[in-house]
């Protein structure tokens, strides 16, 4: 592929900086649920993402030749952001974060504490408690949370490097359910706001970025597309389009039409 891989208008935007690290791409992507490692790598390349999330799990001792994901993703090229996905308590999330730091290459962790198996919505008490511990231990915590302003403010106060409110539940593809909440969180926080989870297609990514947030993280919308590589391109363009539209400043909404062509000077 050519053309579309280049950022649409790089000079019009600044990098995003989280915990002292700067990234040009505002699209962060996950590595789960792909049909093959080759497809995952091709999709990540097409997305233009620099930040790529990974999970910590047991080595499969019966298939030790089936190597971990580091055999497919070059940690010198991608910034690997470990998550604590699947953790249901603060203690469990802290344990996973420590394991991830030992396995990884940086102090960054995408902190998830899940409170409910059906909706995978965050346990915000456990999230805040674990965030405070991990910040003290020197982690750069990116906290996956609800679209709730008060929790977002508390996470910022706790020292999180970024706050990651959901667009809708993980893997749901329902898109941005509450643009008002996301805008409010962005307006009130100083740390970067990265919308994480729930987008389904490129227009969702565009709409998310049009709210003015600093970035977006997604996995399922790309991995479960019929053609993940094509969807990764689309998500890249959608993310860039939304970001540039936000920076450009949209026209006001009106309840009446306003003609685009002059009303005067029409030949009689």
């Amino acid at each position, binding site marked *: 592929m050519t053309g579309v891989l280049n950022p649409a208008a790089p000079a019009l935007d600044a990098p995003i900086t989280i915990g002292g690290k700067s990234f040009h791409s505002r699209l962060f992507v996950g590595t789960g649920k792909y049909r093959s490692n080759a497809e*995952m790598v091709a999709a990540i390349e097409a997305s233009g993402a620099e930040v790529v999330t990974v999970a910590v799990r047991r080595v499969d001792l019966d298939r030790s030749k089936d190597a971990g*994901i580091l055999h497919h993703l070059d940690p010198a090229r991608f910034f690997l952001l470990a998550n604590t996905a699947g953790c249901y308590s603060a203690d469990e999330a802290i344990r996973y974060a420590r394991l991830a730091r030992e396995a990884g290459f940086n102090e960054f962790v995408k902190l998830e504490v899940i409170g409910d198996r059906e909706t995978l919505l965050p346990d915000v008490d456990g999230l805040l408690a674990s965030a405070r511990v991990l910040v003290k231990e020197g982690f750069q915590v990116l906290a996956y949370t609800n679209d709730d302003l008060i929790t977002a403010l508390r996470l910022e106060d706790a020292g999180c490097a970024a706050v990651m409110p959901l667009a809708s539940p993980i893997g749901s593809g329902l898109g941005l359910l509450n643009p008002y909440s996301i805008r409010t969180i962005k307006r009130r926080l100083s740390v970067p706001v990265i919308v994480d989870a729930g987008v389904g297609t490129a227009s969702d990514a565009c709409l998310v970025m049009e709210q003015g947030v600093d970035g977006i993280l997604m996995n*399922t919308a790309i991995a479960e597309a019929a053609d993940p590589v094509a969807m990764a391109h689309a998500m890249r363009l959608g993310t860039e389009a939304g970001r540039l539209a936000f920076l450009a400043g949209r026209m006001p909404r009106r309840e009446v039409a306003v003609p685009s062509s002059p009303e005067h000077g029409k030949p009689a």
Partner: protein
Amino acid sequence: MMATELVLTVNGEQRRVPAPATAERLLNQLGLDPRGVVVEVNRRIVRRPELATTPLADGDAVELVHFVGGG
């Protein structure tokens, strides 16, 4: 008399390994590259430089983890 082998719980499964055992020897026996694996013994992380000097005792619970795909 020293036991000639000991029983560990490795990633939830019981495994017999020759005695004396260390974290590094266990990884070698399992054919795992220490650079790609994190070792936890009884819920304590063993840092890579300490793998060779960390003894394993009968009944120890060992977790071996690495990065996999995730969102």
